[in-house]
């Protein structure tokens, strides 16, 4: 179930939902894409109404917070993307710029996609989400 965030108007959530659908349509390897608040709530998802999206949202926010803490400990500046590669596919967690509260996009894709292309397409999706959320 989507989180009714006080920081995201219903029309913005609906627009984000459409952008995720367009992202998945143009990138067939995408199995799941979830727009997530930094405190672990699902704000929009493709496919919609998938129970696992809530868990992916919580887990991806934890991982992103951990990766940021790790980057700080290593004296690196802002952690940008998190990439998990498995035998069957790839998980990306990408932070969205200039969103308040901060949001991220979690992407689960099959291994049919080249990692570089998946990153490029996912970053483009983040940009269009950022534009839509700032509008």
């Amino acid at each position: 179930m989507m989180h009714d965030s006080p920081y995201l108007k219903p029309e913005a959530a609906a627009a984000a939902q459409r952008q995720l659908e367009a992202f998945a349509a143009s990138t067939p390897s995408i199995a799941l894409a979830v727009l997530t608040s930094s405190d672990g709530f699902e704000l929009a998802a493709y496919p919609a109404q998938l129970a696992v999206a809530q868990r992916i949202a919580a887990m991806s926010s934890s991982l992103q917070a951990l990766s940021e803490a790790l980057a700080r400990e290593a004296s690196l500046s802002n952690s940008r993307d998190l990439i998990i590669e498995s035998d069957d596919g790839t998980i990306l967690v990408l932070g969205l710029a200039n969103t308040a509260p901060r949001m991220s996009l979690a992407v689960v894709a099959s291994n049919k996609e080249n990692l570089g292309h998946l990153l490029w397409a996912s970053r483009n999706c983040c940009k269009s989400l950022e534009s839509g959320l700032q509008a």
Partner: protein
Amino acid sequence: MNTPQELKIVFTGPMGAGKTTAIGAISDAPPVSTEVRNTDRHAHSKELTTVALDFGQMLLEDGTAVRLYGTPGQQRFSFMWEILCRGAIGLILLIDATSATATEDLRSFVETFQRFTPDQPLVIGVGRVPQGESEPLERFEQVLASEGVLAPVFGVDVRKRDDVLLLIETLLCILETRIEEPTDDA
């Protein structure tokens, strides 16, 4: 007793119970924090919330390093609870006495974490205990008794280093007693 060189203790409890504050009160170095802005003000009014873990460390007088891990409090982060409890020698459960769900929280967390740390000692720290009550901790002790759990309960202010140290020292005392007392099987 041979003193282990490293010990792991986990702080848990519901959102807003003071886990991050408690670890910050006793850690020798600034703790690793994964706090982000809390967007769920229905659950709690606080500004920030932990989404992965807190991590601090303190050195005991005998040279033992105690690693302090704090869990997120919300159910949606429960996947972190089992991960963080791996290898822990004990659990400190913090409860906010002013919460409307304080006793339910205690029961729920005790039941859940007994699955992750079934044999490890447990110490309860109750924060924001109302002044003037004759037995302010009694209702929490009754919950533990009804669950068949033997664990000490303390009223604490997690902002105070000595209060948090009391919880740690009690946990270590229980552990030491268990090691020194031969069991029936021995």
